[in-house]
């Protein structure tokens, strides 16, 4: 769609540089579709309707992620999920969900401009995040398929280990993104030697 051309990432004012020495690589995956989905998991109608659209059951185990084709679904709370879609599929998935759910008690809200994805990869990916995140990021504790909403540098983030083990995916709020990237750039200094 032509209007996609007019989009600007939340970190448009940040210049990401190539990593030096032991620095991890920081990259934005911009402009994904983000749908906030709420409903009651003990309502089979809700679960079935959602499964029909997304092709998989919603994760009901706390802090887990399910991948279904192009979609990733993050558990946010006992009745709340984040559905990430490719940019161009967001409207389609949103309207399919809304129509499949009909009068079932639920809510499907587009938050695509409200967050962005930052991937941190490389040897010191965990160490960079650990500079100001109280979560245990060790691979035996925080594994691929898990996710957690936590504090990161006085802001918040959803953090999930990347499925290939190369680092972490961070989903951060737009208004905090510029600050968080400035923080990360400062944090990188520790690893430049």
């Amino acid at each position: 769609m032509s209007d996609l051309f007019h989009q600007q990432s939340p970190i448009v004012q940040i210049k990401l540089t190539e990593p030096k020495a032991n620095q991890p690589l920081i990259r934005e995956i911009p402009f994904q579709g983000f749908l906030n989905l709420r409903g009651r998991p003990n309502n089979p109608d809700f679960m079935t309707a959602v499964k029909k659209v997304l092709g998989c059951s919603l994760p009901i185990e706390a802090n887990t992620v399910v991948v279904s084709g192009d979609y990733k679904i993050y558990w946010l709370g006992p009745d709340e999920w984040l559905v990430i879609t490719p940019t161009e599929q967001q409207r389609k998935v949103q309207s399919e969900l809304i129509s499949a759910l009909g009068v079932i008690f639920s809510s499907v809200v587009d938050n695509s401009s409200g967050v962005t994805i930052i991937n941190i990869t490389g040897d010191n990916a965990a160490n960079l995040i650990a500079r100001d995140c109280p979560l245990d990021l060790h691979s035996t504790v925080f594994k691929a398929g898990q996710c957690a909403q936590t504090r990161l540098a006085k802001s918040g983030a959803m953090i999930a280990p990347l499925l290939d083990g190369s680092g972490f995916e961070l989903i951060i709020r737009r208004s905090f993104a510029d600050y968080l990237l400035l923080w990360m750039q400062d944090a990188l200094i520790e690893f430049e030697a």
Partner: protein
Amino acid sequence: MSQSFRIAQGGRIDRDNQLKFSFNGKTYTGQAGDTLASALLANGIHMVGRSWKYHRPRGILSAGAEEPNAIFQLEKGEKTIPNARATQVELYDDLDASSVNCWPSLDFDLLSINSKVSRMLPAGFYYKTFMWPKSMWMKYEHIIRKASGLGKSPEVNDSDRYEHSHRHCDVLIAGGGVAGLTAALAAGRAGARVILVDEQSEFGGMALSSYDKIDGQPVSDWIQAAVAELQELPEVMLLPRSTAYGYHDYNFLTINQRLTDHLALNNRKGGREKLWHIRAHQVVLATGAMERPLVHSNNDRPGIMLASAVSTYVNRYAVKPGERAVIFTNNDSAYQTALDLNAAGAQVVAVVDARSQSSSELANMVRSAGIEVMNSCAVVDTSGGKRLQSVQVMSLSSDGQSVSGQRRTLSCDLLAVSGGWSPVVHLSSQSGAKAVWNEEAAMFIPGEPVQQQASVGSANGTLELKLSLIEAANAGNAAAKACGFDSNMKAPQSDAVISDPIMPLWLVPSDKEKGREPKAFIDLQNDVGSADIELAAREGFHSVEHVKRYTAMGFGTDQGKTGNINGMGILAKTLNQTIAETGTTTYRPNYTPVTFGSMAGQNLGSRLFDPARKTAMHGWHEENGAEFEDVGQWKRPWYYPKAGETIHDAVNRECLATRNSVGILDASTLGKIEIKGKDSAQFLEMMYTNNWMKLPVGMARYGFMLGEDGMVMDDGVTIRLAEDHFYMHTTSGGAAGVLSSMERWLQTEWPEMEVFLTSVTDHWATAAVVGPNSRKVVSAICEGIDFSAEAFPFMASRVGKIGELECRINRISFSGELAYEVNLPANYGRFMWEKLMEAGAKYDITPYGTETMHVLRAEKGYVIVGQDTDGSITVDDLGMSWAVSKTKVDFLGKRSLTRPDTARTDRKQLVGLLTEEPDSVLPEGAQLVNDPGAATPVPMVGHVSSSYYSACCGHSIAMALVKDGRRRMGETVYAPLADGRVLKATITQPLFYDKEGAKSNV
């Protein structure tokens, strides 16, 4: 190199790497591997400072964290460090150190006169003397501060970088001596995630100063092998030069790692320190023990050192702290010091032992070496000025309470003292375990753990190496097992040593008449003597915590590490009670001082001190010269000055342009919450004070939210998108609080309601287009909406298209003008803003910031929650009781509105104020009085909450909260200002512009 006290062989120093350093302006040399203290001693320097009250000469006492005397200022300017302990400062090339507490110089200190008049400076002297007259304290304080105090605070900003990191582990071990290493090996070999923390440059602790054997090999070899093995274990992290200084709840420990302090200034790269926040499943404390000095008359002269420190200087640093030494002890361990000195070629004049007999293997080795052992004896006094010259010895009674016989003078330049050992129970105590007095060993040992924690080795009172290793291995195994690892490491082996028991000796008796004896110091850093403790007890201070604060015992940078237990022993004796009954003062973090830099980390400066939230149009605002204002964490454009404009000029221009043509405001920061579900309207009925059931779809309504106390908490406009779907605006600063409050009510009180909330604050970019030409501007870029006044009335919401993008337009006004809020997803925020600027160009569309927004709304009397309210203001106080339903059965805060104080009619109420002089702007926050000439205290009747110059009205306007204000229209109040002026103002309705409301109704 001079270093004339350097022993020719041995030690762990690097003899090939000589370093220069400067002390009090004079240059010396030392070797790599030295501490600043060992390097000074190698140069024969003992006297390093003056005590802070009496300015007595003081020397190096210890070789570790407990040092009370050798406290230096290191370096100058941006690298300066006040109060560094020379015993823990690793020597580096060109180190610059100077003494604190001496003026004008260390050798010639004018304030040493205090020592001569010390009888007039008892405990509590400052409290007693300088409090009268009270008004003079500020003057006294100035002089006292000059005379005392330790290092100097830096005068320029610290140029260093400080790192932070969080970690979790299975087993955290504090203390990397042989016990800590053993526990680490046990847990580490089992595969547990282990963090081993040690404050020294190399692991090994006290064993680095000894010739013990473990598993048949010299202890230094065993240490080397243990460290090498730990380094190879992937889940083990070693943190040398790191002090575990705080043990908090839930096994959370704070650890400060010194990364570069050991390097020459020009070789330092990267962060100076790193603060580790570590949460551990299990903690093993292997923090060792500290030796206590003995408290006898004149026990503070340079040349008097802890016996274990003497051994450390001899064995680890190859430095002879003296040529002629006397050992004074009440236990076995100092005998080793006699042997160490003897082996180093120093003359050991005698071992003075308070105990009637000493017959252990160690004591007999000393006798075999030809050293005189004087049992049942005590050092009762010493002589010397800037260095010890001799000690006086007398016979001591078997109960330690009196001395008798002739004074025998032993000439010496070193007195090595040992009053027994105190386990370092600081971390265990901080963790919540109350230290327990062990009468037999005469020491406080760690109490029963209250967290997942164990103490081992000397830290647990187990001074003997063999037993210490067993304890450590057991604790390491147990900690790993508790984390699910199979761990059965056998303890390393060491030979058993049998010692004679200690004879507790808290205060060495004097042969002088009570009250006439020379000072015997307990706390060297704070100049607290035994007589001060006795005086405090006589004056009624019986709790050890009170005695501490009255005498200052245990304050200062060393926190009484050497002196406290002796002081408690003396207090117990004075009060005729046991030490167990006396107890200890509370051990609090931090174990040793921590730099502010370490605590601050990189949370500094305008970028990183606090998150700065930015809107999608932030870049545009910057490029167009906006000044920014902090609103909560948001950066909002404040005003957009053109060249040469003051804020006043810019705001006047922005106001007039908006009222006369069109202005544009970035309103993206408003909180936005989607509310969905069949009970949404009912839910809003509870949250807001007004009615929501009958609001038509596509229409918006303004509402107040109250706290349970009936006070205004937040306000905003909420739109009905569908029967079961609303879109709520909150204040910019209140968004997070409103969302969590609403979620809490839904989850805890009204779970039966079918309502879901979703925050979309960050998703939408919002531009408020305001002014008579706003309709033309918005309709020019937005298709699919009939913008006519009839089809799109005030407080309506419509969906249209900007290009191919779906947009939402809300006809809402916070200015009294015709106005539209245009919303697009924030990824398109800048695109939308630029489209509006382009469309508005022919109307000279003027971007405006929060200052103009405030003026425009104040002209109309619209309130800002948090500015015109402060949590104690009701809707009625604001004169807006029309917004509170009289018919609803319930809403949050309703019950509180009928409380007598909330319901009374003469509360502080919102009014307008017009100053007598149109150009005088009342300061916000100014207090208002009825009669500025009244006798003080002048009764205050209210305060100014909002105040501006209004270019549209041509005079200043203000809003104020005035007692019974609504009944006082037309009356006069006065604002007496700090600069002496008194501004006169008339109370009016809070409405100054377009009083009929015609401008928004077009």
